Structures are given as structure tokens and as C-alpha cells.
């Protein structure tokens, strides 16, 4: 129980590494930086392995409960300031612990995040060897690992959100790693801002949950969701909450319509693309939805939304990927597409299949990105596939590993992707409603497209004719050991990871899904109940075995799709020389242009949301809002201010005039003038001759005496 008791030490490792880089990184040599930063992640990985092993032993003895470890309460106090009344009328405190939760779901994420993270850290030693800002890069990577592990291991939504924002921040910092490049800093801003939209949804969903359940701990929320009967009212709010959470997931996991940041995120260094924008961070949305599965299954509307958005994203991104020329952008759209698959799986209630695809995808997509990085490394920084070709003999390790990853992602057995993708398609097919067959169709076409664009990448890069310049060709070299070693490890995982989920129909036992049963089992039961098909869980299990012929047929179909895609790509690009023509461009130029320009979504957003471009004379979007605000400010607000000033001046003028002429004039000077006027006759008596005064006095006295005597 040593590791399980001290589970918080796992995220602490990379946090320590990041702190060391922050305070002392500048002074350390590259060797020391690699030692510290890679070392802490290796330790974290080993501790994660130990923890998960211990958890499995512990869970077997404890009814497969989740293991929770609460360190302290970091948000909220017992003073009652954050108390609120829940929807049910109970008093609740808005509180969050620094607590860690380990269950099969977080175990899986914990393992592949630390595992793939470790390999990518090792890879980065070679890849970043000649770059500036070495310690900065590794510091950010470690900070990312810390945030991601916090996200995974959090026992409540608030702490999860802290990790969520942390990975968003690291994503921003690493996309903008080459900050001297305008495009990189723009891409970083774009990623950050688009994610903000999703985060707003996450926060609102979180508040909804707090209001409904009175707690944000996953255990409490699950308990609430699985408690039993709810009013229609509550279910409506749960739908709202889950839809808002899904908005958050859309932002972080690059789903329609918030996927636009991910392709641009390829401005970051390639290991970053592999770690953050392919294997780990972008699956955070999947993790969050899977984590909230108990709520989602109560909201059929949300589930359908998730499934439809996932399927549409899958085919949308895959179709763009068909014609992109930048090797990393192809992989970026592929990632968006695969994430769409995962959400499709979640949306149809096949949570285990979705998580399984996350798991396998982490290996082969990380491998593809790292392989692409290795290719770019060999090509002296060239990323355009039009200038590559015939590299398979020059960089054989990269070639073989990337080929394995491609076979895995296209779903060719027995590579990992086959099992997970097939499981998703199969689960979609077996949803009772016919509407889900349409989603299956979309997923199927996407699989075909996936095969096509992935083999297009392989053919254009490793086969066909060399199309690079002579200097570049001269410099082509296989990458150093630190880069090829992770490639090989990931290739091994891409080959074998799928066996964990070997399906029943092929004589396996689907360990992966059973491992996740404690997390999802009741959730899958509930979705059927909610759709008015009570008791179908048991029937569904049987049905699966009954309809095995269909399952085999679907498997054959998807393998056939992969084969067709492979074949078509081979025919089109096998002998591509300088100035080769794209088959789609030849067949339908308008379609090609639309795809090449990514359906003009970025332009559309520029018109509608950012307002960088004007619609006619009108500017919409944020900048339009800014302009309108500016106009409002300069005309209405400033007008009001000026009017107030003008009125003040007017009243001041009037007041001054009043003071000068009425107060001073009539009130003050008036009596004075009057007194002066009255004084003129009085003055005549006082004409200055003393004896006259005396005479008057005598006359007065004489008069007085006469008066007294004769009266």
C-alpha cells in the first residue's frame, strides 16, 4: 500500500522538475536539465505502475471500489461563506479537496500518460538537442505532466478543472515555444482562446452539477446519478449540465465546432504535438465525459449530441486530412478525426470502447508524431510532403515504426487500432435504433479515408521518387538513439496494446472492457432503461453472441476499407515525382480546393466570430463587437460625457452671470449704491466748516432749552 497511500507523489514528481527548471533551469547544463526532467517523469511512471498494481490488489479485496485519498480541503471553508441551497432544497457547501481518486479509468490514463510522456521526454532530449530554450521546453513539459496528472487523479470537478486549465496553459506555452515566429504565437493565442469557450461550458456545467448534487466529488456525483428516480425537471437539468460539460470537452478535445485550434497547434515543437496534441491532453475531454458517464447516461439527448458531434468531427477532419501537404497537419486532422471516433463511442454508450481507443490511439498517434518529427529532423526542418519521398532506406527505423503506427491507425489486424476502432464501429452498429446505422456509416467512411490519408503520408514520405533539394538530400540521416528508442517502444505498444481488448468474438476475453466494468457497467445499463428498453442489458449481452456473424462481417468490411484505402493511396502516390497530381484534384478540382482550404472554416470564423474580415460593409464577430462598442463609446458614452460637461459649463456660465449681476449687482452693490445716492443730500449738511457745526449745536441747544422752558 506504500504507493497507493502516497499517490499524490506521482503528480508531485514533475511538479518538482518544473520548479527546479523555473528557479535554476537557466544555470543548468543541458545534461543536467535532461537528467532532472526526464528523471522525474521516469520516477513518476514507475510510481504509477506500482500504484496501479497496488490498486488492483486493493480493489480485488474491496468490491472494486475507487480508491480515494484526500489530503486537505483547499477550496471552501467551514465558515459557511460558500454555502448554497441545492435544487433539492438542501444546504451544501461549495467545497473542493486536494483529493486523489484512483479507479480503473484513471489507472489507464495514469499509465499511458506517464508511459507515453516518459518516452516523449526521452525523445525530446534528441529532438531538442540543438534548440534554444532547452530548459524552458523541459520545464513546460514537466509542468504539463503535473497538470495532466492532476486532471487525471483529481477526485472532484474543481481540482480536475485546475489540471484542465493547467494543461491548457502548458499547451499555450508550448505551441508558442518558438515565440519569435508570429504564426506560432498566433496559434498559441488561438488555442488558448478557443479553449476558453469550452472552459466556460465546463465551469457552467460544473455549477449545474454542484446545484443538482450538492457536491462536486466524483463519488458523490456518481452516487447521486445512480441513486434511482428523478423528476423530469432534474433530468432536464442533467441534460443541460452534461451538454455544457460536453462543450468543455469539445474545446479541449478539438471537436466540431471548436476543433480549429488543433491543426494550428502544430506550430509547436513536434514532441509537444505528440505528447499534448495527440496522446494526452486532447483526450482530457474524453476522460471528462467518461468520468461523468453516470450523468451522461441519464441524458439521452446529450448522448446523441456527443455521438453525432463525434461522428461528424471524425469524417469532417478525415476529409480535410486527405489533401493536406504538411506532414504534421495530416496527423493533426487525423487526431481530430480519431477523437471524433472516441466521442462517437462515448455517445453510443460504449464508454469502454471509447477509452480503449484513447489508450491505443495514444501509442500509435504519439508514434506517428514522433516519427514525423524524426522525418522532419532528417529533412532539415522540411515539413511539406511534396518535398519528401523515398526515405525508407535512408531512415529505416523511422520508416518501420511509422509503418507499424499507420497499420495500427488504419485498423489492420492485429495492430492496436483494429481492436479499438472495430469495437467502436461494432458498438455503434448494435445500438438498436436505425439512426445509429447512419453514424456507423459515417464511421466506416471515415475509416476508409483514414486508410487513404495515412498511406498517402507513408507513400509520399517513404516511397515514390525523391523530391527534395540536393542539400537536403545530402543531410538526410537517421535520428539519434534517444529518438529512435522511444519510436521502437511505441511501435511495440502499437503492436500489442490492442491485445488487451481482444474481443470475445475472436476467442479473447476483452480484459480491457472488463477492467473498466466497475466504472461503466451500471452506466450502460441505465442508458437502455432511459431509452425505454428496460432489461435489455442482459438481452444485449446475449445478442452480441447471437449476432456474431454480423460482427465478423463488419470486421471484414473494416479491414476491407483499410485495404481499399491502402490500395488507392498506393496507386495514386507510389510513383509520385516532382509535380505529381493529387487524384482528388484531378477528379474534382472544386472539392479539392474546398478540402485543401479546410472547408473555409477558418475564413468563415474570421467573418462570423473574429470579424477579421468584413461581410460587405459590416463587421461581425468579436472585432465587430469591438467596433460597435468603440462606436458606442465614442458616440453615446462620450456624447453623454460631453453633454454632461457642456451642461456643467452652461450652468456655470449662468451661475457666474447670476453671481456677478444679480448677487453682486443687486444684492451687494445695490444697497451700497442706494446708500451712496441717499448720502448726497446728507452730505450737503456736512460741508466741513467747524463753526457751522457749532452753530447748529447751539441752535439745537437753544431750541431744546426753549422747548423745555415753554412747553
Amino acid at each position: 500500500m506504500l504507493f497507493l497511500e502516497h499517490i499524490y507523489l506521482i503528480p508531485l514528481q514533475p511538479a518538482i522538475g518544473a520548479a527546479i527548471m523555473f528557479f535554476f533551469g537557466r544555470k543548468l547544463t543541458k545534461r543536467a536539465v535532461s537528467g532532472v526532467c526526464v528523471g522525474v517523469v521516469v520516477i513518476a511512471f514507475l510510481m504509477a505502475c506500482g500504484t496501479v498494481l497496488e490498486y488492483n490488489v486493493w480493489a480485488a479485496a474491496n468490491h472494486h471500489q475507487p480508491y480515494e485519498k484526500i489530503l486537505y480541503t483547499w477550496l471552501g471553508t467551514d465558515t459557511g461563506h460558500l454555502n448554497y441551497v441545492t435544487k433539492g432544497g438542501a444546504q451544501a457547501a461549495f467545497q473542493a479537496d486536494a483529493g486523489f481518486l484512483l479507479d480503473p479509468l484513471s489507472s489507464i490514463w495514469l499509465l499511458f500518460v506517464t508511459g507515453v510522456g516518459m518516452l516523449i521526454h526521452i525523445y525530446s532530449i534528441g529532438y531538442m538537442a540543438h534548440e534554444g530554450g532547452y530548459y524552458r521546453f523541459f520545464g513546460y513539459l514537466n509542468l504539463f505532466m503535473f497538470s495532466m496528472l492532476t486532471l487525471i487523479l483529481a477526485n472532484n470537478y474543481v481540482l480536475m478543472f485546475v489540471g484542465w486549465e493547467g494543461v491548457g496553459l502548458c499547451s499555450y506555452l508550448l505551441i508558442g515555444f518558438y515565440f519569435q515566429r508570429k504564426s506560432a504565437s498566433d496559434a498559441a493565442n488561438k488555442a488558448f482562446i478557443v479553449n476558453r469557450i469550452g472552459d466556460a461550458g465546463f465551469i457552467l456545467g460544473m455549477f449545474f452539477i454542484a446545484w443538482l448534487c450538492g457536491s462536486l466529488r466524483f463519488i458523490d456525483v456518481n452516487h447521486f446519478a445512480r441513486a434511482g428516480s428523478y423528476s423530469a425537471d432534474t433530468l432536464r437539468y442533467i441534460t443541460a449540465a452534461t451538454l455544457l460539460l460536453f462543450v468543455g470537452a469539445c474545446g479541449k478535445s478539438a471537436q466540431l465546432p471548436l476543433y480549429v485550434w488543433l491543426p494550428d497547434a502544430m506550430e509547436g515543437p513536434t514532441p509537444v504535438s505528440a505528447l499534448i496534441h495527440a496522446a494526452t491532453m486532447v483526450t482530457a475531454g474524453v476522460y471528462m465525459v467518461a468520468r461523468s458517464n453516470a450523468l451522461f447516461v441519464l441524458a439521452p439527448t446529450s448522448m446523441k449530441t456527443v455521438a453525432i458531434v463525434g461522428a461528424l468531427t471524425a469524417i469532417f477532419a478525415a476529409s480535410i486530412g486527405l489533401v493536406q501537404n504538411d506532414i504534421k497537419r495530416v496527423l493533426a486532422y487525423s487526431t481530430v478525426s480519431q477523437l471524433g471516433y472516441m466521442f462517437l463511442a462515448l455517445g453510443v454508450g460504449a464508454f469502454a470502447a471509447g477509452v480503449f481507443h484513447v489508450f491505443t490511439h495514444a501509442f500509435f498517434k504519439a508514434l506517428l508524431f514522433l516519427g514525423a518529427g524524426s522525418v522532419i529532423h532528417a529533412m532539415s526542418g522540411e515539413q511539406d510532403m511534396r518535398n519528401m519521398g523515398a526515405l525508407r532506406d535512408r531512415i529505416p527505423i523511422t520508416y518501420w515504426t511509422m509503418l507499424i503506427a499507420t497499420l495500427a491507425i488504419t485498423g489492420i489486424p492485429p495492430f492496436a487500432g483494429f481492436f479499438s476502432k472495430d469495437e467502436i464501429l461494432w458498438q455503434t452498429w448494435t445500438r438498436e435504433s436505425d439512426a445509429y446505422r447512419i453514424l456507423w456509416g459515417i464511421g466506416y467512411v471515415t475509416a476508409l479515408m483514414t486508410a487513404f490519408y495515412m498511406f498517402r503520408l507513408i507513400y509520399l514520405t517513404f516511397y515514390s521518387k525523391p523530391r527534395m533539394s540536393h542539400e537536403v538530400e545530402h543531410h538526410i540521416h537517421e535520428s539519434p538513439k534517444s529518438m529512435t528508442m522511444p519510436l521502437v517502444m511505441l511501435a511495440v505498444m502499437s503492436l500489442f496494446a490492442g491485445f488487451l481488448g481482444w474481443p470475445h468474438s475472436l476467442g479473447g476475453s476483452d480484459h480491457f472492457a472488463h477492467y473498466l466494468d466497475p466504472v461503466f457497467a451500471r452506466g450502460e445499463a441505465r442508458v437502455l432503461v432511459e431509452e425505454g428498453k428496460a432489461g435489455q442489458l442482459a438481452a444485449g449481452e446475449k445478442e452480441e453472441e447471437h449476432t456474431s456473424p454480423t460482427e465478423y462481417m463488419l470486421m471484414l468490411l473494416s479491414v476491407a476499407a483499410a485495404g481499399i484505402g491502402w490500395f488507392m493511396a498506393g496507386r495514386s502516390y507510389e510513383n509520385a515525382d516532382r509535380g505529381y497530381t493529387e487524384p482528388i484534384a484531378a477528379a474534382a478540382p472544386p472539392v479539392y480546393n474546398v478540402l485543401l482550404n479546410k472547408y473555409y472554416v477558418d475564413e468563415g470564423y474570421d467573418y462570423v466570430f473574429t470579424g477579421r474580415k468584413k461581410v460587405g460593409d459590416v463587421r461581425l464577430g468579436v472585432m465587430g463587437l469591438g467596433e460597435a462598442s468603440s462606436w458606442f463609446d465614442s458616440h453615446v458614452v462620450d456624447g453623454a460625457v460631453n453633454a454632461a460637461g457642456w451642461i456643467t459649463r452652461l450652468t456655470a456660465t449662468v451661475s457666474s452671470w447670476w453671481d456677478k449681476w444679480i448677487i453682486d449687482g443687486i444684492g451687494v452693490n445695490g444697497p451700497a449704491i442706494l446708500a451712496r445716492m441717499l448720502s448726497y443730500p446728507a452730505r450737503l449738511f456736512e460741508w466741513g466748516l467747524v463753526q457751522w457745526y457749532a452753530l447748529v449745536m447751539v441752535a439745537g441747544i437753544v431750541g431744546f432749552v426753549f422747548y423745555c422752558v415753554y412747553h
Partner: protein
Amino acid sequence: MLHISTLHYLVLGAALFILGVIGVLTRRNVVIVLMSIELILNAVNLNLVALSRYWQGMPVRMGGGPMALHGQVFAIFVITDAAAEAAVGLGILIAFFRNKETVNVDEVNLLKW
């Protein structure tokens, strides 16, 4: 021989007083005016002494008697006062003369209005 009664003194005092007043009112020279004031004061002194002496002939129980000398004493005070007043008046006159080089009272008109 005509007995000189109190009334004679009073008539003399009144005449002196009128002469003084006329002098004060009509003469331009401040020195003459001051002298006229002395006349007025002495007219009053004459009255005081005359009436006090008349009072001495009254019975003691009415406040009279040979020891009823209030009028005479008062006259002495008035004489003293007149001397002081003349001194002050002449002082002012000299100060005034230094400024205006005149002693005419009709030219002392700076404080009018």
C-alpha cells in the same frame, strides 16, 4: 448803593456766555476761538460760584450753611480743566499749523464726509 444780588452775577454770566458763544461761532482764528471757549467756561464758573454763595445763605438742614462750598470747589476744578483743555487745544493748534501753515478754523475741513 445798589445791592449786588445773585441775579446780577447770573446776568453777567449769561452775557459772558453769549459773548463766548458768538466768539466761537464767528471768529476764524483758532486762538480767538480757544479764548472764547475760556469765556464760556468762566461764565459757567461765575454761575457756579454765584449760586453756591446764594446757597450758603440757606439753612443747614436744607444742605446750606457756611460750609456748603461745592460750587466754589467745582469752579476750581473747572479752572484746572480749562487750563488742561487750553494746553491740549494749543498743542493741536501747533501741530495743525505745522501742516497747513494757517490757524484759520474754516480751513480745517479735511474730515468732512
